């Protein structure tokens, strides 16, 4: 075990997979000599050469489309979109095309590609360097969408994503990159896509969350311990497919669920989790399935007091937990 940051975990996962499998390669803007704007591919150009480390033109649709083409022909591209906010031009190639490759060819073709992007806010990134983008992909059959929260999860899940035979959208919360540290095994390991993880056991209230928010939720859980509220925290890790079993199990255990995410509320991941619980665990509920999510404004404003208003922190979460516990 070694202590790593999320960024290091992402870097190492790619590096190890590229060493392991010659068909794995990376492409994206500034990933070559620059090593990526966040340095996720630092040293890759030197180690793997410019054939496998492709600095692309500023053209996101083709980054996705070229990766998709290569993936259908035996390669395993990892395409980086520099910021989640610039991922929209890939929707046509990812939601429209990659997600339907297998279905539309009756399984004759498949597309083992990973589309990585740092996303999320709380980094003074303003409207265009803070957006959460998971909901768009999580709505789409044919895709898998991963939103890790810890170095351990990030590495194990990214390796699984790279080895997966279908398109995987891998969304790294950029605020976790250097902020979140944790133990990572030194040996090779993978984690299953589509499995949630109980990050804290508890019996009174469940918080379901993912990504950066996991850490605020854990903090909030500590806080409300003083109020004698015993909180279970379920980290979804994968937002498509959702781990329905895990969601229902914790719901049945506590009877009270709060879903927390940074993304806008309407039609976010929380809506789906809530609907799943209503449909499948209605009788176990001791209180309304509740959501605490980003406000219905477009991403977060720049000026610090405005950004702070947007971001969900442990205090806001603790308040919501208390409310639910009292219900």
């Amino acid at each position, binding site marked *: 075990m070694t202590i790593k940051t999320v960024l290091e975990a992402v870097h190492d996962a790619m590096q190890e997979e590229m060493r392991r499998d010659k068909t794995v390669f990376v492409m994206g803007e500034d990933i070559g000599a620059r090593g990526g704007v966040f340095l996720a591919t630092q040293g890759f150009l030197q180690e793997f050469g410019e054939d496998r480390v492709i600095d692309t033109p500023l053209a996101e649709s*083709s980054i996705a*489309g070229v990766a998709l083409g290569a993936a259908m022909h035996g390669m395993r591209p990892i395409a980086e979109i520099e910021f989640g906010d610039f991922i929209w031009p890939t929707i046509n190639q990812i939601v429209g095309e990659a997600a339907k490759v297998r279905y539309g060819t009756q399984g004759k073709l498949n597309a083992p590609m990973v589309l990585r992007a740092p996303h999320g806010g709380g980094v003074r990134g303003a409207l265009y360097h803070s957006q959460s983008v998971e909901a768009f992909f999580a709505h789409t059959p044919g895709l898998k969408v991963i939103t890790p929260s810890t170095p351990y999860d990030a590495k194990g899940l990214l390796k699984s994503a790279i080895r997966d035979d279908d398109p995987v959208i891998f969304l790294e919360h950029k605020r976790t990159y250097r902020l979140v540290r944790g133990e990572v095994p030194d040996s090779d390991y993978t984690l299953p896509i589509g499995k949630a993880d109980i990050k804290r056991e508890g019996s009174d209230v469940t918080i379901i969350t993912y990504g950066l928010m996991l850490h605020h939720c854990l903090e909030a859980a500590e806080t409300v311990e003083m109020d004698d509220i015993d909180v279970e925290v379920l980290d979804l890790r994968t937002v498509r497919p959702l781990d329905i079993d895990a969601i229902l199990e914790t719901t049945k255990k506590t009877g009270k669920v709060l879903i927390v995410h940074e993304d806008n509320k309407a039609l976010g991941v929380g809506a789906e989790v809530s609907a799943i619980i209503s449909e499948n665990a209605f009788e176990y509920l001791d209180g309304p399935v509740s959501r605490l999510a980003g406000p219905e404004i477009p991403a977060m404003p720049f000026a610090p007091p405005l950004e702070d208003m947007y971001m969900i922190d442990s205090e806001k979460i603790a308040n919501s937990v208390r409310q639910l516990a009292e219900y």
Partner: protein
Amino acid sequence: MAEQTGNHENGAFERAVRTAAESGTDKPMVSNTKSNKQAPVVDEKPTDSPDLLSMYRRMVLCRALDERIWMLNRQGKAAIMASSQGHEAGQIGSVEALKKGYDQFYIYYRDLAVLLELGLTPTEIIKGFVAKEGEPLSGARQFPTHGAHPEYGIINLSNVVATHIPQGVGAALSAKMKGEDRVVIIYFGDGASSAGDCHEAMNFAAIHKLPVIFFCENNKYAISVPLKNQMAVDSVASRAEGYGMPGIEVDGCDITAVYEATFEAAQRARSGQGPSLIEAQVERYLPHTSDDDDSIYRPPEEIEEAKKRDPLQMLKDLLYSSDTLDEEQEDLINKDARQIVNEATEEAENAPYPATNDFYKHVVGDNPA
């Protein structure tokens, strides 16, 4: 990566090949007539001078098939159809210049002749139009002609115009990375050239000198939108220079001209000299699709004028003038084509609809979302 697609209905196409052989010409058969009985032929070399008579025969078959499908549509039996009539020389001439079963063909909905050339049988193709079991590209999940046939190097993933251009470039990137000397040809219309994906893909291919042929079938219309509303220039090929690759305008109704241009572009691609953009000037004789009514927007005289360069007629004239074809033979070819198409129609129509048991399958590989 690829699963087997199940049994193919081969009768009709086999017969086409047999008929061709029987009809006896002075020229030897081109080496790459294909039979579906054997596995797809890999790495077959195109020759310098393709067998024109054989190409004529295939063009006749394609035209007959095209007309039949259009008719089936009019009878309410076949779904939407985008006719290849007027495009055949461009399609057949270009395929002929490439290695079937090895090179990759990123096609679009109008490429009926490419499908035939690469090995799909008329029965299989009609099955696509009537959505029957055994349709080899998508199991009739998709519109006719859409899906993929990896063994034949056919990829036609979606109806979304121009999305396949970067994908084809990705296929070429893969070939280059693997050190294969495979060429990827990407067929698309004048309409597709306006899309951002076309620009991004051409630029990428040029930067990396990828083995790609961008093959534009310019029929001067994107559905009803004429060229003048699509671009302020006369030629799509004129864009090539701005990407740093050769741009070649070719008469797309002249099958030998197309063959030669494609052959040269393939040589450039295979020898590491990078992509080329070929603009084949073709004609669209019918409405955009069977759902369209072109009389609203297109003067009939324009179509009459276009018919003067019917690729079928042009090739026929050439064969007559070189005494490679006579009337008796022509009749035989036509008759055979009709018979093949008749049999294919019957077979396809009599086939059942696909079973519904795999409705939920192939969304993702193992654990469905």
